């Protein structure tokens, strides 16, 4: 299999971009990636574009998004397709782009993920994401992703004795990182006193899906991110001299039951575990080799459960890692250095691409002051589709 390098990265700020058009924000991130790779004038070396988006058809009444994007950044006649895998569309698009290069079909691809969700009301946005649930057995009941996040959190807390205070500590840590990330939706730090235990904490941090509170949930965000990948053995690598190439050393994904109630143990995130095992095997690495990670946390409880499923520590052991500060930016294994979905935001189609943007930035040593991981070698990202029914793990490494 051919080696694949990330040679360009681009991002928009995440937040409320509803005054822009979906393809505009995606093409802005794509143009940023062209500039980062220093190939704006030589952009026609890109042979294929994979676009990640979940809701263009539903939220923006827009289809044919991949073709539109290619035209907006003058990339014709590059091939172009849309990849949709719910909130894991981004990482799935990277996986498909990686496979296109690794197979020998093409040498240079662009991956762009984007979502424009704030053009509708908060409830309409939540309802749109809920359309990925089983129509008869879940969606019909007004069940939503936050509802499953709440049920998961309660089951986890009851089984492993995790306390609300410990969940709040994770939120504080993520906001601390997000406050230093210029692309984050929420660039405001929060304090423990503000969201837990004080007189007004229950007002600031109100219940959304009991036991999860506002600071246990990601915001609804617009935004886009983009990557350019190239085959390491391709003569086209000569175009990419400006930035250090970062390797995609492992990719794995797996599916689990559509209905959450079909899982023998609803706390077991099988697709996370299996996807990570495949990624580790491809990279020839183990969890101990990982320097930092971006883990999909639309609900803060998932940062903990995913960190356990990918093998960083045993099930139910996250609270020990929180207490020791292991996952903080200066800890042994920093998690969600970007602020995670919690603070950076979660434009669903963009998220997986944004996670790998962050891995690349950290591995190049380009993260902003106060959130650069010390000498990282390998970063791992988990992009979680559905309520864990289609999950992609990507490992990036310094050469």
């Amino acid at each position, binding site marked *: 299999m051919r080696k694949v390098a990330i040679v360009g990265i681009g991002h928009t700020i995440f937040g409320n971009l509803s005054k822009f058009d979906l393809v505009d924000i995606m093409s802005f991130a794509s143009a940023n990636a062209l500039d980062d790779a220093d190939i704006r004038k030589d952009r026609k070396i890109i042979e294929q574009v994979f676009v990640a988006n979940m809701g263009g058809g539903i939220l923006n009444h827009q289809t044919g998004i991949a073709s539109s994007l290619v035209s907006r950044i003058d990339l014709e006649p590059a091939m172009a397709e849309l990849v949709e895998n719910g909130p894991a569309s981004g990482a799935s698009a990277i996986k498909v782009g990686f496979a296109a290069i690794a197979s020998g079909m093409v040498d240079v691809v662009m991956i762009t993920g984007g979502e424009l969700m704030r053009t509708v009301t*908060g409830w309409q946005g939540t309802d749109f994401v809920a359309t990925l649930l089983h129509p008869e057995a879940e969606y019909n*009941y*007004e069940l939503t992703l*936050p509802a499953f996040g*709440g*049920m998961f959190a*309660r089951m986890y807390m009851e089984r492993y004795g995790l306390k609300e205070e410990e969940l709040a500590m994770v939120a504080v840590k993520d906001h601390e990182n997000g406050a230093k990330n210029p692309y984050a939706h929420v660039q405001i730090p929060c304090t423990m006193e503000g969201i837990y235990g004080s007189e007004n904490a229950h007002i600031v941090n109100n219940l959304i899906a009991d*036991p999860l509170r506002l600071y246990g949930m990601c915001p609804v965000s617009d935004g886009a991110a983009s990557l350019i990948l190239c085959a390491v053995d391709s003569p086209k690598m000569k175009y990419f001299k400006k930035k250090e190439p970062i390797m995609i050393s492992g990719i794995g994904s797996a599916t689990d039951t559509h*209905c959450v109630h079909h899982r023998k143990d609803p706390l077991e995130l099988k697709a996370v575990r299996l996807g990570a095992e495949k990624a580790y095997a491809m990279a020839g690495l183990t969890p101990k080799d990982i320097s930092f990670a971006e883990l999909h946390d639309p609900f803060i409880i998932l940062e903990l459960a995913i960190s356990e499923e990918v093998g960083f520590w045993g099930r139910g052991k996250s609270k020990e890692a929180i207490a020791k500060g292991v996952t903080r930016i200066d800890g042994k294994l920093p998690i969600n250095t970007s602020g995670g979905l919690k603070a950076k935001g979660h434009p669903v189609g963009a998220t997986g691409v944004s996670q790998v943007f962050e891995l690349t930035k950290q591995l190049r040593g380009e993260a902003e002051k106060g959130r650069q991981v010390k000498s990282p070698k390998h970063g791992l990202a988990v992009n979680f589709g559905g309520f864990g029914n289609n999950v992609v793990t990507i490992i990036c490494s310094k050469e």
Partner: protein
Amino acid sequence: MIDFSEYSPKKPEVYAYKCPECGTLDYPAPMICKNCSARRDPSGEIFSAWEKVLLGGRCKLLGWTRVYALPEGYDEKYLVFGIVEFKNGLRASGRLLMDNPRTGMELETKIGIVREKVGEDVYGFMFDLPKK
């Protein structure tokens, strides 16, 4: 003669589906039996139809949440949802009718309107405290 039967009130029920080959029950209906790989045909014309088995009765609460962010049109402060396990081992998600559930408690199944669509009420599981 115009047939108005489709407009008459239907008895609200939720069904599990029984594989005709091996008897395995599943909910919601699969297209292939997870035990013996027999096929289900929703039309019943190509492969044999699967028997519908009424799903309900007593069940055990496995996990629950109160959701405060509700769809437009709800007057309630919150809705309570849960995942339950029936006596036959099948599980389902649904609405809970009590304010203070407890994981592991025994519940009784009811069928009620769980979503109102234009021109159509959607019936589904509602779980309540068992009658004494």
